[in-house]
Every structure is written in C-alpha cells, then in structure tokens.
C-alpha cells in the first residue's frame, strides 16, 4: 500500500491505496465521487475526464499514486454544495446536451478546460476538434457543440447562459 495526500475538489484528502489503483477507481470507489464514469478500457472515450492541476486528463489512464501531492477537480467540484449549476452545466441542461448522461461529466470537464485554454468565443470547428477524445453514443454531438458554445460565452465575466 502507498500513502497519498492530494486535494480533491478543494478538500485535503489522505488515503492508503494499492499502487495499481487508477485515479478514477480511487475517486469512485474510495471517495465515492461517482460522477466520473468509465466508458472504455482503451483510454479513448473521455467519460472519466477530470482536471489534474487545472488540466483535463483521463483519470482511467492516471494512477492515483501519480496524483499524490496534486490537485484534482471532478464534476462534483464544479458546483459545490449543490448550489447553482456551473455555467457549462447550465448550458448542457438548457441546450439538451445530453440524453443518457453517461458521457456528460467528461464532456463538461473537457469543455471547461477548453474554455480555460481557448477563451469564450469558440467556433463550431474548434469545439468539434477539441472533442476528439470524448465519445457520446446518444446525442450525435449537435447539441453538445451548441451547449459548449453557449457555456463558453456564459463563463465570460458578466456572461449569462
């Protein structure tokens, strides 16, 4: 077992883990943060995307021990205490950017990272390119792209969804 200490959604966490524990397993099974999903075994679907030190990463392809000393934010951390939804979550809700919802946490974490890197005015092509690593089996992406464009604007200072 290895002892790890990290910050998850703003809270300090210390735990003992088997080194082979994936970050997503640690989040879901030990911390009971079940918003991050596992949709594949090949690192391709993006349902597990969380932020590690502010950057979107696939938590199924990162060991929990590799996150020792670092900062993790999951979908649960976007709207803490069940307060108002994050603008990107609100945009997915308003634009019907989900059907079954399985891919949604990863889509939203990827979208928030995208806005942090590329700003609030995102072309459709940019959004589609940036969603390379997130698969949705339900929606056909159309509404996801619309939701991300709207969410990006709403995240601007003074913006509204």
């Amino acid at each position: 077992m290895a002892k790890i200490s990290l910050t998850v959604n703003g809270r300090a966490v210390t735990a003992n883990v088997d080194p082979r524990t994936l970050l997503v397993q640690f989040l879901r099974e030990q911390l009971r943060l079940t918003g991050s999903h596992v949709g594949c075994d090949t690192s391709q679907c993006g349902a597990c995307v969380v932020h590690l030190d502010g950057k979107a990463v696939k938590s199924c392809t990162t060991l929990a021990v590799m996150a020792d000393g670092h900062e993790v934010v999951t979908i649960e951390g976007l709207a803490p205490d069940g307060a108002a939804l994050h603008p990107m979550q609100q945009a997915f809700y308003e634009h019907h950017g989900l059907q079954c919802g399985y891919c949604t946490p990863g889509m939203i974490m990827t979208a928030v990272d995208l806005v942090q890197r590329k700003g609030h005015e995102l072309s459709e092509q940019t959004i589609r390119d940036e969603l390379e690593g997130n698969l949705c089996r339900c929606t056909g992406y159309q509404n996801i792209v619309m939701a991300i464009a709207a969410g990006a604007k709403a995240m601007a200072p003074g913006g509204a969804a």
Partner: protein
Amino acid sequence: MYPFKYHRPATVRQAANLLAKHEEARPIAGGHTLLPVMKQRLAAPPHLVDLSHIEGLGEIAMQGRALMIGAAATHAEVAGSATVQAAIPALAELAAEIGDPAVRHRGTIGGSLANNDPAADYPAAVLALGATIVTSKRRLKADQFFQGLFTTALDPDEIITKIMLPLPKKAAYCKFRNPASRYALVGVFVAKRPGDVRVAVTGAGADGVFRLSAAEAALQKRFHSKMLGGLHVAADGLTSDLHGSAAYRAHLIAVLTRRAVEAAQARPDKVAAQPAALEPVS
C-alpha cells in the same frame, strides 16, 4: 492490472539506479501507452519508476543552434511552446495533432520515442530532423536509435533525458489520421537542412519509421514538389492491415510527401538569419 511497486525518484540518477537495481522495472512518464498496456495485462512490470516528478526533465530551450526538448515535456507543452513555434513550427504543429487534448496533457516526447510505436508521430520528426537522443548513459543519433517495431537502442535501465534538434531551414509534417485512433495511418516529415534534405515516414513501415531515400535524392537537387513528379513508392515492406493495404499506404506516402514539401516551401527560410556571433572565435 497486476500489482507492482511504485517509486518516485527526484533525479535522473536515482531513477537510473532504481531501474538497474530492480529487474524488469520500467520507467513511466505520461503513462498513456504503458498504463493501457498494463490494463490489458500485456505488460506486468513489478516496479514502476515515475519520471514525472524529476525537476527540469520537461525543460524546453534553445542551446546554441539546436532546440532542446526535455524528455518529460508533454505534447501540449511542445505544441504551446513559443520557443518550439519559433524554432521548428512543424514540430509544434505535429505535437498539437497527437491524440486528443487529454492525451496531450499527459503524454511525453520521451515516452513516445522510447515506445517507438510504428504509427506514432514524433519518430518521423526526430528521424527527419536528424536529432540526437540524449540518455542517462550516452548520446544516440536518430538513425541508430529506432530499431524496428516498438524497439529502440535503449538498454532496459537507460532513460532518455532530452532530445537535441538541429534547426532545419524549412520543415513540415503531413499526417493522414486514422479517424478512429488518431494515430498516423501515414505521416511524412520533410526537413530541408543546411546541408541536405531528409524525409521520414511513419505509420507505413512494417519495421516502423524509415527514411524515404528516393524522395531525399530528388529533393536534394532542388527543394520543390515538382521534383517528386516521378516519385514511385513501392508497396514492399509496408504494413497491410484492416486500416489499409500496403498499396494504399504507398500511394499515401507519395501524396503526403508532396503536400509536406509544398507546406515547407510556403514557410520563410530559417537558420539563414542566425547571428554570426554564435560562430566560435579563433
């Protein structure tokens, strides 16, 4: 995934010692090749030596006339580096096309080179640019480094520390992406260097990345896509799989080589503007 012991060294020397001490220990950098393979139980190293916390191993800087990229630099760091964009823009563009944003946040140039996947992008750039791979033990020329599918000149306890890339006059990379995996179905990197022209092909060779000598010879005479009019690429020695036949890949190589040369031609000359002050004074 089978159990293993995890080590987090702070220096390259510590990491190399751990690898030498524990048989079958493997370094892990971004983990974006190694972890999927371990999940499938195709690899089961009893010890993992994490390189991602070694200070300075991801540094990017100019060193004289060469661009230095630390082994732990992520694809996103290379793509976003103003130094790389100014020195070898084709390399920044190549890095920006690897996988997807999350893969680029974790995957590293050192991991990609050590893995030498026959469809990976970096090997084409490193071979065409005539780079030197610096390790914990020695310096290896790109021509010696790549030794066939998933095989390199590295010893099991040897760590890539940095890549030294001499600046080309012009360079470009053209990749035909496999739409499902985003790896190169075929990728061609063309470099017009101060003394010669080098062309390297990834994705297509049954033995991994290789140089396209026929195109190099033609472009040596004059660096122009017209020189490739008679270029015929044989399908012998190329990969055939469910994604494409060897003949299809041969066709793509010729098309992408032409496009890469055209893209390179469109760039302003580099190096020519280097200050003479860098010459040694005798």
